[in-house]
């Protein structure tokens, strides 16, 4: 079993199942903060999927996309928490 087929048939399905489970929490989420951390986790898993995909295809350019996504995830969570706290303060 080569590394590429191992990644394609084992690692990527595990990540896909994780994405599905997080999506269930994103839709169920009883509170808004649950949805915010579900989005944060979705983007983190997305970074991992992009990385694994760049290993599987052998193209290293995808790592740049992962870097930009990591930046955007942090800014998104910070903005969400700032405005949630402002809304609660009245």
């Amino acid at each position, binding site marked *: 079993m*080569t*590394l590429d087929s*191992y*990644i394609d048939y*084992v*690692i990527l399905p*595990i*990540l896909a*199942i*994780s*994405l599905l*489970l*997080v999506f*269930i*929490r994103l839709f169920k989420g009883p*509170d808004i*903060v*649950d949805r*915010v*951390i*579900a989005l*944060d*986790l979705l983007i*983190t*898993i997305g*970074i*991992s999927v992009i*990385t*694994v995909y*760049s*290993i599987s295809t052998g193209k*290293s350019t995808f*790592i*740049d996309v*992962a*870097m930009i996504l*990591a*930046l955007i*995830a*942090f800014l998104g*969570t*910070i903005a*969400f*928490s*700032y405005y*949630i*706290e402002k*809304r*609660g*303060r009245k």
Partner: protein
Amino acid sequence: MINIIIGVLCTIGALAILVAAIGILRMPDFYLRLSVTVKAATLGGGLLLLSAAFYFPEEVSVTTKALAIIFFLILTAPVAAHLIARSAYFIGTAQWEGTADDDLAGMYDKETHQLSSGNTPVNALPPKAEPELGTDDETV
């Protein structure tokens, strides 16, 4: 040999991310979900990026980028988790009934968002004196 290392790193990383996903689905309240999610997802993403750094050994730029992303993830994930947990505490997110201690109860001033430390709750604090001239006003 390098393929075995990459495979092991990928497997551990993917399993850590799976644990994070199961945890965010199964944990009973927001704070436990946050506590499970951030650490496991950071570990999993870091290990997968490390395996990418091993896979492209002849390109120094890719290794540097992967290590930079790992550094950035480890730097920013706790900060984001702390901020979102603080906001959740302010808007009164319910806790699980099995949670034994709430050390922050009564410690936050809901009006000014000021945290009192030590064993004196915020209602027992003396009223703030008027700032004198020439001293730094910390409440600005």
